C-alpha cells in the first residue's frame, strides 16, 4: 500500500518537530497504536498496533527504527513486525516532511508498506483503504491535539 497526504498542523515547524518525538502525545494520534515506548532516543522505538477488520483481529508488535532525521524538516522511519496469531507480517516505510506555512506547518506524509501472509493476499483491497483512513485520522487527531 501507498499513501500520500499533506496534513495541515497548527504549529510552526520547530514545535511540530518537537511534538513528533513526544512519544506519549504522538501515540494518541496514531490510529491503532495501543502503546509505544522509546528504546533508544531518536533512534529506536517499540510500538503495539491493533486493528480489526470484520471478524479478524490484528495485533502486531512493531520494531521502529528512525533512518533519517533532519531537524525541523524531515523524518524517515522503518517499521517491521509480525502478528504471531494469524501470521501476518508488516513492513512499512514512513517519511514525514515539514513544510513551513507562516506560523503553521504542512506535514507531508508518505507511507509505503506491505502486509505479507494470507491476510495480505486476502485483504488486499481492504488494506489500502484502511491505510488511507488511518493517515487521514492521524491528521485529524493531530489537528485536534494542536488546536487552541
Amino acid at each position, binding site marked *: 500500500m501507498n499513501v500520500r497526504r499533506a496534513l495541515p498542523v497548527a504549529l510552526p515547524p520547530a514545535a511540530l518537530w518537537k511534538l513528533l518525538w513526544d512519544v506519549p502525545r504522538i501515540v494518541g494520534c496514531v490510529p491503532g497504536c495501543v502503546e509505544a515506548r522509546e528504546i533508544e532516543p531518536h533512534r529506536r522505538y517499540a510500538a503495539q498496533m491493533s486493528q480489526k*477488520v*470484520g*471478524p*479478524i483481529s490484528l495485533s502486531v508488535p512493531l520494531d521502529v527504527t528512525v533512518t533519517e532525521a533532519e531537524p525541523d524538516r524531515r523524518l524517515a522511519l522503518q517499521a517491521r513486525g509480525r502478528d504471531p*496469531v*494469524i*501470521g501476518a507480517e508488516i513492513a512499512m516505510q514512513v517519511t514525514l516532511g515539514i513544510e513551513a506555512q507562516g506560523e503553521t506547518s504542512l506535514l507531508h506524509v508518505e507511507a509505503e508498506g506491505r502486509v505479507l501472509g*494470507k*491476510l495480505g*493476499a*486476502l485483504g*488486499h*483491497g*481492504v488494506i*489500502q*483503504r484502511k491505510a488511507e483512513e488511518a493517515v487521514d485520522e492521524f491528521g485529524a487527531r493531530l489537528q485536534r491535539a494542536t488546536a487552541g
Partner: protein
Amino acid sequence: MLRPFALYRPTTLPELGELLAEHGNDAAIYAGGTELLLLLKEGLLRVRCLIDIKRVSGLDAILSEQGAVTIGATVRHRTVERSPLLHERCPLLARVAAHVANVRVRHVGTIGGNLAFADPHSDLATIGLAFDGAVSLWSRARERQVPLADFVLGPYETSRRDDEILTSVRLRPWLQGTVGAYLKFGVYERPTLGVALAVTMSPAGQVSEARLAVGCVGPRPRRFDDVEQQMIGATAADLADAAKPLADATAEAVDTVADLHGSADYKREMTRVFVRRAVATVAARAAGRDLHERYPHTIVV
C-alpha cells in the same frame, strides 16, 4: 485440519444469547460455515467454540406479509432459488440465487451468513438494496431493524454488535409493472461487479420508480439516488437513449477500490459498461422485447 473447538447447538434465541454472553469473542456464530470455516482453516480467526444457529427454531422460514417478504437467516441459497413464494414476489432475487458462488456453496451457505459476513465481492447485498432490504438484529436486550444501506459498513464490516445475531432480512417486493435485471461479471470464484436495476413502469408507459444498485467494486454496495431520479418519467425509448449518460453518471459517482480483481480505474470503467448494458436490457424488456445480444450472467425479470 482445523484447530479444536467445542460445538454448541442451542434451540432457542435466549439459549443462544446466553452462550454468546458466556463466550464473547471466543465464540463464532456458525450457520453454513462457508466463510467461517475458511477463515478458521487459514488461521485468520481463532475461536474456542462455534455456536450453531441452525437448530434455533424460527430462523429458517420464508414469510410473506403485506408489502414485505421476510427470509430467515438460516435459509440456504438453494432454498431461495427454489422458493415458489420468492419467485412470485421477488423474482430477481430467486433467480440470482441460482448464480451465487457454486452449487455446493448454494446448498450449504445461508442468507444470514452471507449478509453478516459482508464480503464485498458478493451478490446478495447488492440485490437486497434494490429491494429496500432491512435486517433484523436480535440480542438479549432488544431486537432492532437496520436498513441494509446502514448495515453494511465496509468490507467484512457491519453494524452488528458482538452480542447481536442477524435473524432475518426483510425485502419490499416490487410493484406490478416492474422490470428488473441483475448483471454480474467476473472471472474468479467471487464476482468482480454486480449491477441491479429495476424500473417500475406506470400504465402510461413512464418510469415511476427506479432502483439502481452497484456492488463488488467498492468497499460496500450502494444505491445511486441521483441516477435513479434521472430515470423518473422516462419512456422505455427514452431509457434506451439514456443508457450512456446514465452509465457515465454512475461511473462518476461510484467508489471503487483496487484489489486483486482490478484497479480502481478498471472497476470504474466496468461500472460504466455494465450499467449501460443494464439500462439497455431493462429498457428493451420494458418495451416488450429482449435484447438480441446475450450478456453472460444476466438475469432479467
